[in-house]
């Protein structure tokens, strides 16, 4: 007996294509609010004199904040019922595997981002594969996301995955 694939043809056809692009300006008060919410008072994020003494030209954006720089704006009636925006996945839906959870994320950081840098993000669907796990079949989706600044310098590159289950 051949089971029907969890991956529909429409989703499968999107492997290798761009799922999302976005741009945003790095803003020190935004990253400082994030750092404060993490309880992270590292002077590299807050104290220009300290940052310059370490060889930077100014305070720098915490590496893990970079992903939020490019977030867009979602109207209230554009939200999903659970309150999330759903933008990050590029609208991929798996009708045969509707339950989704974040898998993992792996990021390489190449350079610092400063206040008022312009960041461009390009996210590509790298692969969509069906796997067999301990609790049954699932779909593993992997995206590759590249962040560049206004000088086209590579700032970071991330590989992100999501698991969708029937």
């Amino acid at each position, binding site marked *: 007996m051949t089971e029907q694939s969890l991956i529909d043809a429409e989703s499968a056809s999107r492997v290798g294509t761009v799922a999302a692009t976005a741009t945003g300006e790095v803003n020190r008060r*935004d990253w400082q*609010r*994030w750092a*404060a*919410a*993490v*309880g*992270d*008072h*590292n*002077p*590299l994020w807050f*104290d220009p004199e*300290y*940052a310059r*003494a*370490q*060889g930077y030209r100014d305070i720098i954006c*915490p*590496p*893990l904040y970079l992903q*939020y720089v490019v*977030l867009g704006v*979602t109207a209230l009636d554009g*939200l999903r019922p*659970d*309150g*999330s*925006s759903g933008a990050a996945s590029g609208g991929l839906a798996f009708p045969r595997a509707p339950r989704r*959870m*974040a*898998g*993992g*994320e*792996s*990021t*390489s*950081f190449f350079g610092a981002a400063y206040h008022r840098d312009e960041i461009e993000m390009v996210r590509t669907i790298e692969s969509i594969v069906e796997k067999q796990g301990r609790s049954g079949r699932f779909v593993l989706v992997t995206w590759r996301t590249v962040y560049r600044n206004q000088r086209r310098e590579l700032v970071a590159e991330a590989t992100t995955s999501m698991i969708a289950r029937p």
Partner: protein
Amino acid sequence: MAREQVFYEDVHPGDALPTLTVTVDERQLFFFSAATYNGHRIHYDKDWARTVEGYDDVIVQGPLQAALLARAITDWIGGRGRLVEYAVQNRAIAFAGEELSFTCVVTGKRLADNTGLVDLDIAGRRDDTVLMPGTATVALPLRGDRS
């Protein structure tokens, strides 16, 4: 704020970094959702978390766990250290009010292009349960390298 700088030469496989221990409360969940433009109800709407998504309470954001784990690293590497690679997996959820600990252990070190690279095994934990396993690589300054 004076901070001590750790150097590549001082670090050895098996070394444990100082453990960061944090109990996330609902205020922190709210501020982190606000700072990351995250509207997902499971982080602030107890009734939704319980009746729709089946959790016992509001849950700590995965990205907040990841940010706390990264903080354990960036607190340690000092102003001249740099986070180069960071990889984590979401394995289990945590609720507000639970004590979480963030631990990192040195697994290796190597020189690449005159840069001192140190590899770490990292984990977010609740007691003995690993919520978020991962790995990281940091670049540390070499003693005598004042550039």
